[in-house]
């Protein structure tokens, strides 16, 4: 079990709503960004003397640009429906981690400076001046939100705390109080092309290594091409897929599926990152600039289709925003949606019967599926609402014999975030990450006890990294997390592949 210098929540058989403990997580704040990470993004280096004026001006600007912000700050009636829905509240008991508690940190400033009631009767409506204490609270608690949108499912007005958190981070960036983790990474994307700072030659090297591994294992020469001009498909995948476990096993799976489909594909060293941290910091401009790299790569490589790898928030930017930020995509093949998710791609082939599987290759596992928050509540797959739930499950069930869902209250649109999304996947936020994972790990623990589940499949780089890191805090193993396309990779029988099963069949024949 991993060592923690805080109390790891206890897992229960039935989900409990904790009593509030004000201030329980007030000490949690990520490292503040240094000037060198702020400036490449177009933000001031550090907090200036007159930050308050700038912050209020910025807020006014954003109220004019985002209807969501304006409507959501006005509409809350404090009914309480959201109060027990946030995984960070359930895991920390801090009432400022209740969605409404978090929103109110901004709402009280909004009311003070932008509403009649707050200007003249601040006490009555809970309006407050934007003081340094309030700013510190913002910095702390708007970095305890993973923008997972679970609250927005249960709000009678659809108030989405993610919209508020994003706006708060944009305002803080605008006054020089950015978060190191996100902003450093975005600067890396601009300089090198991906979040991990993996340069082109290293990428080429890694993918050549994968080709060798796959050929050694299967005897089939599956290609993992980089910057191949004229390829049909541009694969955009989170850079963690290039080397982290279990991500890379998923990447191996994508390559095998493309191989069997008989389509040419390539990754781009220029746009070698699916994740778009511009969304986490609520910056339309940065989100757009990062998205434009994909457009440029698609044009330069003359591809006809774009497919995204397994990544949650990336799929949100891809599915919901890419057409807005980097479209129109009229130069691509109009027969396919732009972009497509790798699960949509694989599922189509499965339905057409073009892939051959040996499901027994996954018989050492009993699986469950974690609906990644942003895939579940901010995107779709396929052409029907809810395809984002059914398609990954269909893929898993096509390649595995043993599958069980977790409690209905914790999956599909009600799924709990892994606890590391929205720009919190950094070691300086380990406590909130572990505590925020509690509801998901609790549901996982229950299917492990009741159904004998051994592994959790996910389609998000953040979820995979987060679970690998936090499961040990709860006494579980880091390798209980698997990629969906890792399962596909295990089970797929490549054309011309000499499988272990052939040997086994022969042996079985001999024995009989």
């Amino acid at each position: 079990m991993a060592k923690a210098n805080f109390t790891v929540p206890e897992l229960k058989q039935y989900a409990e709503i904790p009593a509030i403990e004000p201030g329980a997580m007030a000490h949690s704040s990520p490292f503040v960004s240094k000037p060198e990470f702020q400036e490449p993004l177009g933000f001031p280096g550090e907090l200036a003397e007159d930050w308050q004026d700038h912050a209020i001006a910025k807020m006014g600007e954003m109220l004019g640009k985002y209807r969501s912000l304006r409507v959501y700050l006005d509409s809350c009636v404090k009914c309480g429906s959201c109060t027990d829905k946030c995984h960070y509240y359930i895991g920390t008991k801090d009432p400022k981690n209740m969605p409404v508690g978090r929103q109110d940190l901004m709402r009280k400033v909004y009311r003070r400076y932008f509403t009649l009631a707050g200007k003249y009767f601040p006490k009555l409506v809970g309006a407050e001046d934007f003081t340094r204490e309030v700013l510190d609270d913002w910095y702390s608690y708007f970095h305890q939100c993973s923008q997972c949108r679970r609250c927005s499912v249960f709000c009678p007005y659809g108030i989405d705390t993610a919209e508020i958190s994003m706006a708060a981070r944009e305002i803080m960036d605008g006054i020089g109080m950015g978060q190191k983790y996100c902003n450093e990474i975005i600067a890396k994307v601009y300089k090198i092309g991906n979040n991990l700072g993996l340069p082109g030659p290293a990428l080429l090297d890694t993918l050549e290594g994968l080709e060798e591994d796959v050929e050694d294992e299967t005897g089939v020469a599956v290609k993992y091409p980089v910057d191949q001009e004229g390829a049909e498909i541009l694969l955009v995948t989170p850079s963690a897929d290039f080397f982290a476990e279990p991500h890379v096993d998923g990447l191996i799976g994508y390559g095998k599926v493309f191989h069997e489909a008989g389509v040419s594909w390539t990754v781009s060293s220029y746009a070698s990152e699916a994740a778009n941290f511009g969304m986490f910091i609520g910056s339309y401009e940065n989100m757009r600039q990062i998205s434009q790299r994909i457009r440029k790569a698609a044009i330069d490589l003359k591809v006809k289709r774009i497919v995204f790898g397994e990544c949650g928030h990336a799929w949100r930017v891809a599915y919901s925003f890419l057409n807005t930020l980097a479209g129109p995509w009229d130069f691509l093949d109009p027969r396919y949606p732009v972009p497509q998710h790798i699960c949509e791609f694989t599922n189509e082939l499965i339905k057409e019967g073009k892939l051959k599987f040996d499901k027994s290759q996954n018989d050492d596992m009993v699986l469950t599926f974690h609906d990644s928050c942003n895939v579940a509540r901010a995107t779709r797959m396929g052409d029907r609402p809810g395809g984002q739930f059914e398609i990954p499950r269909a893929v898993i069930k096509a390649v595995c014999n043993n599958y069980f869902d977790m409690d209905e209250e914790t999956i599909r649109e009600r799924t709990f975030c892994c606890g590391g999304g929205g720009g919190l996947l950094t070691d300086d936020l380990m406590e909130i990450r572990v505590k925020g994972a509690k509801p998901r790990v609790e549901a996982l623990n229950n299917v492990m006890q009741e159904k004998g589940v051994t592994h959790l499949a996910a389609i998000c780089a953040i979820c995979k990294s987060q679970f690998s890191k936090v499961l040990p805090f709860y006494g579980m193993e880091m390798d209980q997390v698997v990629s969906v396309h890792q399962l596909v990779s295990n089970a797929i029988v490549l054309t011309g592949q000499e499988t272990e099963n052939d040997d086994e069949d022969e042996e079985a024949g001999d024995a009989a």
Partner: protein
Amino acid sequence: MSFLTVVYAILFYFAFAVLLAGLIRKIVQYARTPAPLKIPTTPAPTTEAGVALRLFREVVFFESLFKGNKWIWIFGWVFHFGLFLVTLRHLRYFIDPVWLPIQLVQPFGIYGGMAMVAGLAGLWARRFLVDRVRYITGPSDHLILALLILIGLSGLMMTFVVHVDVISVKLFFRGLMTFNISPLPADPLLLLHLLLVAALMIVFPFSKLLHAPGLFFSPTRNQVDNPREKRHIANWAKSLEQ
């Protein structure tokens, strides 16, 4: 004409003007503010008709609240539906002759009044009994509940305890509508009831009661899930594309 009648006439003209102008101002503000990105909470409808149906379910059945919390849903829905019946019943003060459906709804309006008060009491109790809800409750939340519950109670009392001359009340409001003011009965309960209603009208556009128009402008609820098929771009964002 009595001083009281003049005061109440002015009060209601003022309250009506504030309500109307305030709401129009907010609605125009919401409508003019762009929603630059597609953010429906999914699974979401893929057609306009589907979105209309989703909003209908939210407005009429409080679908999301039902998913969120059954107690708040019961109290909240009972209150709002009660208020709806009460509002229909009160239309008789403003139209002449009274339409048949409004005549038929009259007795239900009384049950509506009781339901409204019961629902409000439940919602208010939660503000004391549930620690999470107590934490997020401010003075204005209590005041609005007090205002609504007093409106309901004073109204019910005029039905069951101290009757008022409803014919005169109707003449007063019909008079207001035709700028031909007739006297208002100086009944304390009636005056209290009307004063509180006027206060509610004035407070409406400056308070959380804006949730009513807000719901229709909520991008997570009113957007069609079709970002891949149709490019969605705000005017201010177009300028980034030079």
